C-alpha cells in the first residue's frame, strides 16, 4: 500500500499556547535565554508584521517597539502541550509521532479514505486547529521527508507518484540538511532540490558524503524512514470523590481499599507491581495531607498492601473532614505472573520479611533497614558492604576468611611501641595482661584507594587473649610504631 504521511508544523506554538488562555491582539513575543542574552524565541502574527525576527535580542526589539509584550519560554509546558496535540491527532490515525519541538508526524497510511479527499483532510485539520487559535502548516506526501519539506517550505498534498514534481521547486534546505551543507550547496549554485537531482549522484556523494545522500533517498522513499509513535503514558492512579466529608479511621481505610482495588487490577493486567504509593487526602478546608508508603518489594495484592497503610493513616489529621482521596502508584516495577507451586499457597517467608521491612520502613525510613553483602577486600572495614535491604536481593556467598572479631570499632590507641605485643596495657580504663597472642597477620593498605584511616601504613594484626578474659583484636603499625585495639571477639 502506498504510504501517506502528514507532517504538521506549529511555527508559533510557544506563543499560541500562551495566547490561547489570554488572547490579545498586540505584538507578543516569547523569549528564551540564549548565548548570554534574552532573545526572541517565538513571535505572534502582529509581532511578525512589525518586522521582528526570531533570534533578535530582546533589548533591540524593546528599543524598536517599547510596547512589545513578552513572556519567558517554558520548554516543559511546551512539550506537554505538543503531547496533548499528538493525542488529539489520534482522531485522524492511530500512529502519531513527535517531530522536533513543534511538529507532529501522522502516519495516515490506510486511513485517508475516511475523508473525501486528501485535500479535504488537510482542510479539516486546519479548520479545527484554527478554531483552537493555533497556527499550523501542513504537508501530505508518501514519505516523511517529503511531507516535512512540504509543511515547512510549501503546503498541500503531493499526490502519489508526483513526488519529484512537488519537491523540485523547493529549496535545498527542505531536505532537512544542516546549515553548513546548505551554505555550500548555495555557493555551488544548487538552489533547489531540482538542481540537486539534475546533478550526477556520484559527484554529490564524493563531495558531501553520506548525510546528504541519505536525506535525498529518504525524501524520495528510496530509504525507509519510520514514524516513531509516542508511547502512551500509563499512570496508575485512582480518585474517589466523596459526597459527604469523612473523618473516621475505618471510613478512610474503606475508601482506600476501593482505590487500591482499582489500581491493583490495572497493575495485574499490566503485570506490574508498585514500590511507592502516594495517598493524597483533600480536606474540606482546602488543605491536603499526603501519606507515602514505600514498599520493600513490588506488590499488587490489596490484602497485603492495605495493612501496611494502617499506621500512617492513623496519623492523618482529618481536620473537618476529607472529601477527596487520590491514590497513585509513583514507582512501578515489572512483576510477572508466576505459576503457583503445589503446596505453596501460603505466603512465602521472604514475603513476610519484606512486609516487615516495609512496616519498619514506614516508621524510620526504608534506607535505614540494611543487609550485609560480601566485598572483595582484606581491609577489615571494607570486607563487607551495608546496603538497604529493600533494594538488594542478590545473595552472594560469603567466603571463609581468617578469624575476625564480631565487634569492630575505630582504632583506639594503647601504650607500647615495641614490635611484639606489650605484656600489660591499659584499654578503656581497664588494665589487661596478655596471656596469649596469635599473629602477626599483616594487612597492607589498598594503594588504589586513598583511605585516611590507613595513612599510617601497613598493619600487623594480633589476636590477643588476656588473663582478664577478654579477647581483643589489636594491631601494630611498623611504619609509625604504635599499638591500637580495633575489635573484640565474641
Amino acid at each position: 500500500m502506498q504510504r501517506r504521511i502528514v507532517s504538521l508544523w506549529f511555527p508559533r506554538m510557544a506563543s499560541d499556547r500562551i495566547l490561547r488562555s489570554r488572547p490579545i491582539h498586540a505584538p507578543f513575543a516569547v523569549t528564551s535565554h540564549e548565548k548570554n542574552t534574552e532573545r526572541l524565541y517565538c513571535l505572534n502574527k502582529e509581532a511578525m508584521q512589525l518586522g521582528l525576527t526570531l533570534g533578535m535580542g530582546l533589548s533591540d526589539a524593546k528599543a524598536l517597539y517599547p510596547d512589545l509584550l513578552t513572556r519567558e519560554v517554558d520548554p516543559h509546558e511546551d512539550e506537554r502541550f505538543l503531547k496533548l496535540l499528538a493525542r488529539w491527532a489520534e482522531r485522524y490515525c492511530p500512529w502519531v509521532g513527535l517531530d522536533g519541538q513543534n511538529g507532529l508526524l501522522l502516519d495516515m497510511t490506510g486511513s485517508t479514505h475516511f475523508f473525501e479527499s486528501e485535500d479535504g483532510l488537510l482542510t479539516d485539520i486546519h479548520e479545527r486547529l484554527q478554531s483552537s487559535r493555533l497556527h499550523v502548516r501542513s504537508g501530505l506526501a508518501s514519505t516523511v521527508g517529503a511531507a516535512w519539506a512540504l509543511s515547512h517550505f510549501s503546503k498541500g498534498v503531493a499526490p502519489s507518484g508526483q513526488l519529484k514534481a512537488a519537491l523540485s521547486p523547493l529549496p535545498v534546505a527542505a531536505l532537512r540538511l544542516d546549515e553548513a551543507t546548505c551554505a555550500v550547496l548555495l555557493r555551488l549554485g544548487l538552489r533547489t532540490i531540482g538542481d540537486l537531482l539534475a546533478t550526477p549522484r556520484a559527484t554529490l556523494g564524493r563531495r558531501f558524503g553520506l548525510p546528504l545522500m541519505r536525506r535525498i533517498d529518504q525524501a524520495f522513499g528510496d530509504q525507509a524512514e519510520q514514524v516513531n509513535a509516542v508511547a502512551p503514558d500509563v499512570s496508575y492512579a485512582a480518585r474517589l470523590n466523596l459526597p459527604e466529608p469523612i473523618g473516621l479511621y475505618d471510613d478512610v481505610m474503606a475508601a482506600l481499599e476501593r482505590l487500591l482495588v482499582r489500581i491493583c487490577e490495572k497493575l495485574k493486567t499490566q503485570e506490574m507491581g508498585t514500590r511507592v504509593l502516594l495517598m493524597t487526602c483533600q480536606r474540606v478546608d482546602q488543605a491536603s495531607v499526603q501519606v507515602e508508603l514505600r514498599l520493600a518489594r513490588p506488590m499488587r495484592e490489596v490484602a497485603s498492601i492495605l495493612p501496611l497503610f494502617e499506621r500512617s493513616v492513623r496519623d492523618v489529621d482529618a481536620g473537618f473532614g476529607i472529601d477527596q482521596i487520590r491514590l497513585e502508584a509513583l514507582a512501578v516495577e515489572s512483576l510477572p505472573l508466576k505459576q503457583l507451586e503445589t503446596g505453596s499457597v501460603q505466603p512465602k517467608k521472604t514475603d513476610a520479611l519484606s512486609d516487615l521491612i516495609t512496616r519498619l520502613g514506614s516508621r524510620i525510613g526504608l534506607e535505614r533497614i540494611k543487609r550485609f553483602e560480601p566485598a572483595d577486600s582484606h581491609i577489615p572495614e571494607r570486607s563487607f558492604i551495608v546496603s538497604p535491604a529493600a533494594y538488594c536481593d542478590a545473595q552472594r556467598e560469603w567466603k571463609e576468611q581468617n578469624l575476625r572479631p564480631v565487634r569492630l570499632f575505630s582504632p583506639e590507641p594503647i601504650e607500647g611501641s615495641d614490635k611484639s605485643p606489650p605484656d600489660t596495657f591499659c584499654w578503656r580504663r581497664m588494665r589487661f595482661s596478655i596471656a596469649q597472642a596469635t599473629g602477626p597477620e599483616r594487612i597492607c593498605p589498598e594503594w588504589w584507594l586513598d583511605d585516611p584511616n590507613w595513612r599510617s601504613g601497613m598493619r600487623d594484626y594480633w589476636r590477643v587473649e588476656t588473663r582478664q578474659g577478654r579477647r581483643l583484636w589489636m594491631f601494630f603499625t611498623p611504619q609509625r610504631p604504635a599499638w591500637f585495639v580495633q575489635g573484640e571477639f565474641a
Partner: protein
Amino acid sequence: MTEFQDVFPLQKNRVHEACGPGAIGFAAKACGQDDMTVLWLQAGWQSEQLNPVGLMSFMSPKNLTLVQAESHKDLLACTEDGLRSGAVKLVVCELSQDLDLTAGRRLQLAAEEGGSTGILVIPEGAGSNATQTRWHCSPIFGGDHKTDKNLTLQHWQLIKNKSGTLGGWKVFWDAEAHRVIVVSKDGE
C-alpha cells in the same frame, strides 16, 4: 536445680536480656544455635559496629537484617513490630538506655503474639522486670593449656529467671557442631 538445657536454647515466644562484656557474643551464639532469620536492631549513632565476617563463625550473615534506628523510642517500636510480625525467628536489640516495665511488658506480649524470641542486649543493671531470663556474660581466660583457636570460653551467669532457679555455667562455642558446649557448672 536449673540445668543448662532447661534455659538454653532460650525459651521461645519470650524476651530475654543479656548484659556484660560478652553479651554480643551471647546473642550471636543464640542466633547460631539453629540457623534462623534474625532481625538485629541497633542505634544509628552507635560507633561499635557489627562485623558480618566475624559473625560467620556463628551464623550466615545472609540471614541477618540490620535496622539502625535514630532514637530510643524508634528502636523499641521497631523491636516490637519485629517481634509481633513473626516474620523472623529471633529479634536482637542493642539498647543503650534503661528499659522500663511498660516497655518490657509490651515487648513480652509482642513476642508471645508473634511467636518469636527476643534478646535485648542491655547495659549492666538496666533490665526490666518483665523479662523471662537475664544473663550476665563475661569472657574468661581458659588457662594456658588451651590450643583450640576457636575456643571461646565464657562464663554465663543466669541472674534472673521467671520460671526456675538461677545458675552459672562455663561454656564455649563449638563452631563445627554449631552449638554451645557446657564445660562445667558453677559450684561443681
